């Protein structure tokens, strides 16, 4: 698709801005996100092309304003539902559950 991910040659993206001595993961949630993606991918539930396309279909503004592992989060939720591994209600129940646990804590 002629999506926002197809960035080659675009102008206006700003400086590259490399971080010195960048850690492999910046947050604990990034570690967990990496791990669940790898584990489900190796399981063969979806293939790499399906996953990449799910990322590509993110709304353009959201794609540009979120981080790499946030792209993975958005897309893994979607592709798991598409593949029938759980449904939206299951996901919402999980959200509700972690949010209330957080409130109690």
């Amino acid at each position: 698709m002629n999506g926002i991910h197809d960035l080659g040659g675009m102008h206006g993206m700003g400086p590259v801005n490399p971080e010195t001595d960048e850690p492999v993961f910046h947050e604990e949630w990034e570690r967990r996100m990496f791990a669940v993606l790898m584990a489900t991918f190796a399981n063969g539930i979806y293939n790499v092309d399906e996953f990449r396309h799910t990322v590509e279909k993110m709304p353009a503004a959201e794609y540009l304003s979120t981080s790499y592992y946030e792209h993975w989060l958005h897309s893994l939720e979607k592709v798991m539902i598409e593949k029938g591994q759980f449904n939206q209600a299951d996901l919402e129940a999980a959200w509700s559950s972690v949010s209330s646990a957080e409130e109690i804590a």
Partner: protein
Amino acid sequence: MSDHDHAKPPSDTALRVKALESLLLEKGLVEADTLDALIQLYEHNIGPKNGAKVVARAWSDPEYKARLLANGTPAIAALGFGGVQGEDMVVVENTPDVHNLLVCTLCSCYPWPVLGLPPVWYKAAPYRARAISEPRAVLKEFGVEISDDVEVRVWDSTAELRYMVLPRRPAGTEDLDEDELAALVSRDSMIGVALIEGA
């Protein structure tokens, strides 16, 4: 079938990931110790030290270097490295006439077995947009200036081939052993955004 609006995800990304992880565990799609092992493997075991060893061997052994450039995957495997996102490796050599630079304009393809996971800048919009169209300007941002009589050659990894740059061996390193040579090789030099200064 409920007709309520879909609930919004938690605004805290950490909570949202936690929810996804617990759902995947509950459904038996992932196992907890597998997740921990994956993090250990990619945070602590696989990284650019692997690629540095490949470079040091290529600098020290012309026959190995020839094999590496002809067919990257088995030569890299001979040093014990390989696997996911590096099953089909191509190594490209910097010479006095050619400077190589790697990018994945469409996503973030990167040779994990030799370099580990890619840095944020490699996966972000500015590098992906500009490395292919204005590589010299990007290199300048990294403090690298390539003279006009050298060809800058950018490799866009659109397929499942994964690339690695073999940087030029700096002058004054003739007496160094492989371990000492490997210590000179930075991750950035194997992407092509850095040169290696002498010992």
